[in-house]
Every structure is written in structure tokens, then in C-alpha cells.
């Protein structure tokens, strides 16, 4: 069996494999739902209803999608230049940590100054955290997959240490939890009376900015060139290492915004369970979106919808929530396969 590239795929070739992938995902998860003793039709109905069925459900999904948009963008930007940032989780916590450090009362500024200041500081924190693996790669050729992945553990343990020590909330009754942000450091709600904060607006705004950078700017052009063919890019006069470093700075900054937005918009304080793996799920989001920054928003809503919907479904149908994890994993694997099939024809020998 081998693959033959298709030069100009038509619409059917582009759309049929993804559709089959989606149907197969539903089929496989239906079987699992049946094994768990539930009616598969009602399971999917409940997931949909739990994710998008009511105003509360929809807002919950949008809130859950917010950090995924940021981490998805971070991964999409890096992967586009073939810089494999697996460390969005650590960069997320770097943003969250800076937000807490600056937001719990050290700076008594009005919100209009304090919030932008914290945003910029978070971006810088995430950027610096990813700068280290980027420099190790460009200077010494150290594989960034390894360094960024290991940084996740190092940084999470570092945050844990701070939460058990200097950052521990004296009023927190012994829990490893930071003090709460002052009101000026909290992100306001997007609409009065609705449980949706400005982090979502910032996420949408960021995805548009990233899209504009990628398609209209020389930097975006350089990043795509480096990602597609380093050798030709270098020959044409693009400084590959400089582009990789700039990419890393942008990627780290975007991931850090996820941490900022979760702390300042939703939680109000920092705990070790701030992120249930948003950094890693960002990889799924970016891949499902084919690394397209606008597609990241759609993919993040899809993934968040499954998570939120599965939560409510499991309560109603008595099926374990990890059905959602399986669903996402199957969807990702099949989608990657389907995307390959839109570009290649399988030929049997």
C-alpha cells in the first residue's frame, strides 16, 4: 500500500474524508456508551444539550473554550514554523503566576492601568519561559520537544513550591492556594449579568491578530517559509534562528494569556488545578484547526463543547466523563488521517 499525492483535490476529496472521520468518531463512542449501559442516541443528545442547549450551557462552553483558544493559538503559531512547543502548560502557569504576583495588592492602580500592565507582564513571562528552549535549540541544537515538555514539570513543581510557601494565602485555611486578586485586577464581564468574562473577547481578538500577522506581515511570511523549507528560507536570506526565536516569543506569550485569563477572568486566585491540561489540549485544538488561527476558535469551541457537554451528560446518563476524553482522542486521530486522505490517494500494490 502506498500514497500518491493528489495535485488539485476537488471539493468532494476535501470534504468527504473529514465527514467520514466525524461519523466514525460518533460510531465508536456510541459503542462505548452502549457498553457503559447508556442509550447512544440520548448520550449525544445530552452532550449537545449540555454544551449548547441553554444560555448557561453555552456560556459555560465559551468560558471553557477561552483558555483553549489561547493555548491552541500558541501551538498553532509555533507548529507553523515547525517549532514544536509542547510546553504551553508551563507558559500558561507563568502567565497565571505573574497575574497573581502583580494582582493581589502590591500594585494599587486603577483597573484601566493595572489590567493592561498585567497582560503585558504575563505575555513577557510566557515569552521568556519559551525563550530558554528556543535559545537552547538555536545555539546548541537541543531538541525543543524534550526541553519544552520537561519545563512543564519543572514549572508546575515550582508553582507548587510557591503555593506551599511564600504565595500561600494566610486566610486559605492551609490549602495550597494564593490570595485573591484585588477587584482592579479582575477582568470584567463581557455583558452585564452574564457569566462570561473579557478573556473570551481577548481570545477572539488574539486569533484575529495572529491571523493578520500570519497572512499579511513579513514576519508571518518568514515563519511560514521557515516551517515549510528551512534550507530555502536560509538561502533566500531569512535568518532562520531569529525567526524561530520570534516565533517562540509569540507562542509563549499567547499561552501565558490563557493563565492570565483563567486567573483574572474566572478563578480569581491561583491553585495547582488551574489547568486540567489546557496546554496539552491546545495541541489537539491546533491540529484539528490545521494550524489556522481562525480555525483554532472553532476547534476550541468544539473541544470545549465536548468537555462541558460530557460533564452534564455523565450526570444525567450515569456514564463516566472520560467518554469525552476518548471521543476527543478518536476524533483527533481520525481527523489527522482524514486530512492526509484529502491530499493523498491510497494505492494498493
Amino acid at each position, binding site marked *: 500500500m502506498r500514497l500518491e499525492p493528489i495535485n488539485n483535490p476537488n471539493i468532494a476529496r476535501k470534504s468527504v474524508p473529514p465527514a467520514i472521520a466525524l461519523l466514525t468518531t460518533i460510531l465508536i463512542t456510541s459503542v462505548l456508551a452502549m457498553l457503559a449501559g447508556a442509550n447512544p442516541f440520548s448520550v449525544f443528545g445530552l452532550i449537545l444539550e449540555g454544551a449548547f442547549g441553554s444560555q448557561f450551557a453555552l456560556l459555560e462552553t465559551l468560558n471553557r473554550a477561552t483558555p483553549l483558544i489561547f493555548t491552541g493559538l500558541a501551538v498553532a503559531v509555533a507548529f507553523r514554523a515547525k517549532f514544536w512547543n509542547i510546553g504551553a502548560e508551563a507558559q500558561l502557569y507563568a502567565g497565571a503566576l505573574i497575574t497573581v504576583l502583580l494582582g493581589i495588592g502590591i500594585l494599587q492602580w486603577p483597573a484601566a492601568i493595572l489590567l493592561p500592565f498585567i497582560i503585558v507582564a504575563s505575555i513577557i513571562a510566557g515569552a521568556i519561559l519559551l525563550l530558554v528552549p528556543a535559545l537552547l535549540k538555536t545555539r546548541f541544537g537541543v531538541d525543543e520537544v524534550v526541553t519544552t515538555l520537561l519545563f512543564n514539570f519543572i514549572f508546575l513543581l515550582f508553582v507548587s513550591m510557591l503555593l506551599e510557601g511564600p504565595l500561600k494565602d494566610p486566610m486559605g485555611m492551609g490549602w495550597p492556594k494564593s490570595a485573591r486578586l484585588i477587584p482592579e485586577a479582575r477582568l470584567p464581564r463581557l455583558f452585564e449579568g452574564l457569566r462570561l468574562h473579557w478573556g473570551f473577547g481577548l481570545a477572539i481578538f488574539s486569533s484575529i491578530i495572529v491571523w493578520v500577522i500570519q497572512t499579511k506581515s*513579513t*514576519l508571518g511570511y518568514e515563519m511560514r*517559509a521557515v516551517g515549510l523549507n528551512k534550507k*530555502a528560507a536560509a*538561502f*533566500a*536570506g531569512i535568518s532562520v534562528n531569529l525567526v524561530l526565536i520570534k516565533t517562540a516569543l509569540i507562542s509563549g506569550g499567547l499561552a501565558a494569556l490563557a493563565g492570565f485569563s483563567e486567573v483574572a477572568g474566572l478563578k480569581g486566585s491561583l491553585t495547582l488545578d488551574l489547568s486540567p491540561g489546557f496546554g496539552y489540549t491546545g495541541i489537539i485544538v491546533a491540529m484539528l484547526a490545521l494550524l489556522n488561527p481562525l480555525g483554532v476558535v472553532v476547534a476550541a469551541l468544539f473541544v470545549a463543547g465536548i468537555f462541558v457537554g460530557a460533564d452534564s451528560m455523565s450526570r444525567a446518563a450515569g456514564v463516566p466523563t472520560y467518554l469525552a476524553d476518548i471521543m476527543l482522542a478518536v476524533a483527533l486521530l481520525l481527523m489527522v488521517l482524514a486530512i492526509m486522505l484529502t491530499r493523498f490517494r491510497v494505492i494498493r*500494490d
Partner: protein
Amino acid sequence: MTDTLVEALSLDAITKRFGELTANDAVSLSLNQGEAIALLGENGAGKTTLMNILFGQYTADSGTVRVFGEKLPPGNSRAALNAGVGMVHQHFTLADNLTVQENITLGTQSLLSYSSNSAGAKAHIIALSNKYQLAVSPNARVGTLTVGERQRVEILKALYRNVRILILDEPTAVLTPQETDDLFATLRHAISDGLAIIFISHKLHEVMTIADRVVVLRHGKIAGKVEIKNTSKEALAKMMMGTEASPPEVANSTPGAALLELRKTSTLDIGNKPGLRDVSLTLREGQIIGLAGVSGNGQAAIADLIGGSMYPVSGQILLSGTPIQGWTPHNAVKSGIARIPEDRHKTGTIADFNLTENAILEHYKSSNFSTCGWLNWRKSRTFASAIVKKYDVRCPGIDTPIRLLSGGNMQKLILGRVLEGQPRVILANQPVRGLDIGAVNYVHNQLLNARNRGAAILIISEDLDEIMALSDVIHVISSGRLSPAFDRGQMTPTQLGLWMAGSGFDGEVSNAS
């Protein structure tokens, strides 16, 4: 030779379409045992597609392939191999870290067999290499071999598998004239033993030398089938192009000031490729310098030095007499050096970028195409359209990914990209490798025009004909050493061939004629 002709291969009405394009349109040809046919055609004429169908890489839309009367199942490479079809690719398919013997026997043995008959294999290889004068040691690591030796390994690999039909794709592109003669002697021997050969080449005089018959393809169709004894180079060129090809007229030039100078430059060895040894070379206004030599003797280092990708470990690079500092590809482009890279697929273009994006690759930062870090796509597209029109790049449109273009059209885009900047120095590394005669003449004429308006040009080529036709001055490079300058007509191809083989440097050839 044989009294009764045995038909080794017959292709019957092969048709293959890629979307709108018909790559092969009802192509039929037959090949007898002990016969060599040459497959001629411009780039994009469908030669490669046809060979890929024969070899089972592609499935034909219609038509059949028969080998010794047996129909080959379509799209099955293994069946083609088993039927005795072998191919020596233009780019060798050898593992550098394995020995010659390991490369030759690779894949001939079942994974499940316990023992390997290594001694028997070795004896067989030595017997084959003696019989066909393919001198190469079975124990040598392929990474240490020269290009000519590697090609011998490829041919041995095919012979070891008892191929009865051998396809050679541009086999002489990387050889010295002497090595080419040796190759032809080997092939003649194999043909007289009954091997059937398909010889793909652009070099008409080689086709005339080795082939019994010629099949010419044009736009996917058979444009003619002739016996060699009934044709001439001119007639073949005409058949291939549809019109008569006119080689460029080269008037004498009057060289001007030195624009770029390498002064006693040396570079480090890279792998088994030698670095430069005290090389001095001056590129002058209105002069074409040809750098002849067998691939891998330091041409890449010279190209990298001039193109800005490398800095010498000793010696200097001077631009208009001034030593340069901070030498990068970007600075080289800014200094007016146009670079046509050796590998247009991997270095010259980004395959998945469209024509527009590739057209601005070296200049996207200039004020023509961007302001303050924002690209001006409108101007970029205008530029790409202008190149497509002026340099006759045949393509479905400027939004097409460049990987869909043929090599010749890709090269025309690169040519347009560099020549539109009115460069003062042009570095053309293998500018016409793999191109058809139409494109070759086009590229050569563009380079001559550039010379006539005063550009200093360095052409690096393994094709001695090209060097001798175009160059005002010829240097030969061998093992990182540069020969003295020879004026046009001073040296015969044989004398240059000896320099290419390295003997001139030891004083065996007098450099005065």
C-alpha cells in the same frame, strides 16, 4: 546480433491524466532484447511519467505494459522488479553508511532467512564487475565513493538482480567525459549480452552514440520514432522542440572592472567533500567564467562563498575591491549578487509556496514589497505576473503552488526573480541541469544578455559542453584546487577532462597549448 528479435517490453496506448493535464496520450513503444532506445523529450513531455507507469509508481488511466509478453499488473512496483525491470535514477538511491555489497544485496533476501550467503554474493558481485568493467570494491562504504563509482554501484545493483530491461535516467549528468566513455563501453557490453536499455537524456550526441532507435515525446504524445542511422542531431532537436533549436551565438566580450574577488580563500572539508585550498578567482564586468569539474570537488564551497552562505576560514572576499564584512545571504542579495542555486527544488524554491510567494522570497523586505513589516500582496502579485509573462513561465496561475511546475518553468521563475533586480554579479550553479533544450537555450540566452549589459557571471556546471559554449574564461576545479584560467578555445574537452580528473595539478598536463 540475434537473428530473431525478442520483444522485451511493449507499452500499448498508455494514457495518464493529472486533472486537466494529459501527461501521456496513447503512448506506445516497444523494445527488443539487446537493443538500446533513447527516450528524448523536453521537460514536461511525459518521459518521467511514462517511466513511472512502467515501473509501477503510477497507475495508467488506460493502456497496458507487457514485459516479455506478460502483462504487468498496473501500479505494482514489485511485479515490475520481479519481471526484470530495473532503473538507475538520476539521483542515486543508495545508503551512504552501508558498504557496496550491502547496498547491492539490500532487499534481495527474505527478512526471515537465518543466514546470509555473504561470500557467494561477494563473488557474484566481483564476477559482474569484472565482466562489465565496473571497477568498485564490494567492501567500500558508499559514502566514501565518487559520483561515478556510485553510479557503477547502481548499475551493479540492477545487474545483480538479473534485470533484463534497464532504464537509465540522465546517467551522464554527473560524469566526466572519460567516465561517460567508460559507462558507454559497459552499456555496449551489456547490450551485446542481451540487455534491453532505455536511455533518457537531453544530450543529443550521447543519444546518437549509444542508442539504436530514438523515441521522441512532445506534450505527452509520440512526436517521432526513428532509427539512429536515419537521423541527425539537428533532426532530433527539431522533432523534440517542434522547431529548430538555435544554440546561442557568443560574441567576444571585453571584460571590465573586477566586481567580486575570492583572494586565497580556503574552507573546511565537509564530510567527504573537500574544502577549498587557497582558491583565487576574479569575476569581471561583462565576462562569463565557467567552472568545470566533477560534482563534489569544491563547487558547493565556491557557490556558498559567493552566495553569502559561508565565510572562508582564511583568505578574503572582495566586492569591487573592498573586503566584505558580515557576509550573509541577505547581504549578498543586497550587494547585487544574483544566485541561481544548484537545487531548485530544495534550495531555490519553497515547494508549497505559490508563485507569488516564491517570486518575492529574496526581496520581500525591500520597499517594493513591504512597508514597516507589512507585505504588499498587490505589488507582489504584479511582480510575479510580470515575471511569468516576461520569462515565459508556463503555469496555471500565480496562485499555484510551485511544486506543480516542471523543472524548466521553476528555473525560469528563479531566473526572473534574480534578473529583475538588474544584478551586477550572477552566480549560476548548474543553471540548466535537467532542463530541455528549449529551456536550456532560453536560460543561456538570458545569461548572455546579462553579460552583454555588463554583469559578471560565474557558471558552475558538470556539463563540459555548456561550459565550453558559454564561457569567456574557464577554470577547472578538482579536490578543492582551482586550475589556472584558460581562454575560450584554448583547451580541448580531453585536456579539460584530464584537469577534471586532477592530473593537471600535478604538472602532467601543460596548461599552455
